[in-house]
């Protein structure tokens, strides 16, 4: 068995959780000490650990500690979310906590790529739209939000607003080609041709 079945992701529906602030880095999402692992399993409980717990591991004020957000699957964030380190541990931890989609003002490049590799949309909208959604989610933690990846809209509270899903991301999610290994493997001969065309590449026979 070499290729796994990839599920197309046209829409994501669920309740939301607001995580406010610009420039939230991956060291905050997954502190470095939790990277000392050789699998991603079990990372969910350490997501945002130092924001959620004090020195004695007592819970602090944080949306992820609140009962009303425990079933949330859509995280609503602000600008440059996921900046810093390339650690896939960050989206893996949030995914394992329960997040299936992000809506935000903007995302850091590597974080966004890591999310796509997991089939998690990173949908963007202007600051006003995002703030309005954060406020709505805060007041309506049980309300359903629907992210229409294909149609690039967001529906909640009987309204539908436009959002942006980058072309390549949208196509990959909607057509179920976001897990790229099989796709890339299907071009093995062309890869070898490219390798042989590069002056610096020395291949073993």
């Amino acid at each position: 068995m070499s290729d796994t079945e990839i599920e197309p992701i046209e829409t994501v529906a669920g309740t939301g959780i607001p995580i406010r602030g610009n420039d939230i880095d991956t060291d905050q999402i997954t502190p470095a000490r939790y990277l000392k692992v050789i699998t991603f399993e079990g990372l969910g409980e350490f997501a945002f650990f130092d924001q959620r717990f004090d020195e004695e591991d007592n819970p602090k004020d944080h949306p992820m500690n609140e009962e009303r957000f425990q079933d949330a699957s859509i995280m609503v964030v602000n600008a440059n979310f996921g900046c810093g380190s390339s650690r896939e541990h960050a989206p893996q931890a949030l995914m394992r906590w329960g997040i299936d989609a992000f809506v935000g003002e903007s995302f850091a490049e590597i974080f966004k790529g890591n999310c796509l590799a997991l089939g998690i949309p990173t949908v963007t909208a202007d600051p006003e739209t995002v703030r309005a959604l954060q406020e709505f989610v805060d007041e309506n933690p049980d309300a359903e939000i629907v992210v229409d990846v294909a149609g690039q809209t967001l529906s909640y509270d009987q309204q539908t607003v436009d959002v942006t899903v980058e072309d390549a991301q949208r196509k990959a999610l909607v057509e179920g080609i976001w897990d790229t290994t099989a796709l890339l493997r299907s071009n093995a001969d062309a890869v070898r041709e490219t390798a042989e065309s590069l002056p610096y590449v020395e291949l073993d026979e």
Partner: protein
Amino acid sequence: MSEGTLYDKVWDRHTVTRLPNGQDQLFVGLHLIHEVTSPQAFGMLRERGLEVAYPELTHATVDHIVPTADQSRPYRDEAAEEMAAALERNLADIDIVFDDPATGNQGIVHVIGPEQGLTQPGKTVVCGDSHTATHGAFGALAFGIGTSQIRDVFATQTVAMTRQRVRQINVDGTLQEGVTAKDVVLAIIRELGTDGGVGYVYEYAGSAVENLDMAGRMSICNMSIEGGARAGYVNPDGTTYDYLRDTDAFRDAPERFEALKPYWESIRSDEDAEYDDVVTLDADALEPMVTWGTTPGQGVGITEPIPDPADLPAEKRDVARRAQEHMRVEPGDTMTGYPIDVAFIGSCTNARLADLRAAADVVRGRSIAPDVRGLVVPGSQRVKAAAEAEGLDAVFTDAGFEWRGAGCSMCLGMNDDQLVGDQASASSSNRNFVGRQGSKAGRTVLMSPPMVAAAALAGAVTDVRALSEVISQ
């Protein structure tokens, strides 16, 4: 879209095909791996019954978790030992070169690639580490990838990538005495923002960049990601070629050097290349930079006042307020005199021989402040040996610094070298994020190696240009 830049040329040469989702399938010329981000990728590979397709283009080392004092095995930290052992197990049956500590070639992945000549102009270089842009200093197209992409590179030697825009950053003029490459890149990030580079690759150019040695160029490219840019590069030139000639790859193979040089020349950005954006910075106006906050974009010149959050653009105010509270600094003050507990010279940004020499020049014949813990952590075993051969270890230890083994050390809290409680550090590393150096309450002030040395001597953040005055007082 840009045209005729190094980025365009290297991208085109390495494009295998256009994928159905509109991304390009990009061939990877050099895949660097380390113990933190590779084990899960090896696991995914095994789950799918796949093998490493091009082991000859992959190179491994250990850096993040290795202790920098006692490096004997098993490591005292069980989790670190398990990670090192996992990498060894994963590599046991694969023909991948592994620079483990026993080889004398071990070090931070972004230090060993260049010093061995693995990093070359016109190569694509990837690694599961965001500071991979470092290798762009040689005119390589180098960027960090996540673990799922590492799996893809293992399985196919390619990645699926979206072509990005190119911004040329011209740093024109002459850097003043005491101003380094680190100050240039901190100034760039302050200017363009921590997310200003999202969607862009940065081409660093201009006379001040061209006059830098390779270590300086690496420091600048290294921190591209801190400005949001996944990759950054400098066009290869005589400085690049002189460096490469003396590396393992070419030292005994001048014919190979000559054979590749036309390719290297061919991928330089054209004189009339088109860029998506061009930004210019005045090198003469720069002074030593230090950060006052908790993002690398929150920097000031050493004589400049810390900004009032109210004067910043609206979207930066909250982050600035929280940062000032964490760092315990006040708007209007300068960072000069900010007391430090720890001085760290090391990391993939600033742990090369040239960095250690520059710091040693400041330290020589002096002593660090009594309450300051000073650490010097060479970027690789080779850097360490070369530094010892010229007596730099003694310069540092005579002054009261610890002279340690190669590794990522206190750049991030994954090994024994960590801040404790609310200690403040003067650090030559790349990130001042809350908790980055191992303690949630820890406070990090980023600066160049000579500035860290000066801070260590004075016990507080200090303008290295005025050091003699400060110490004699």
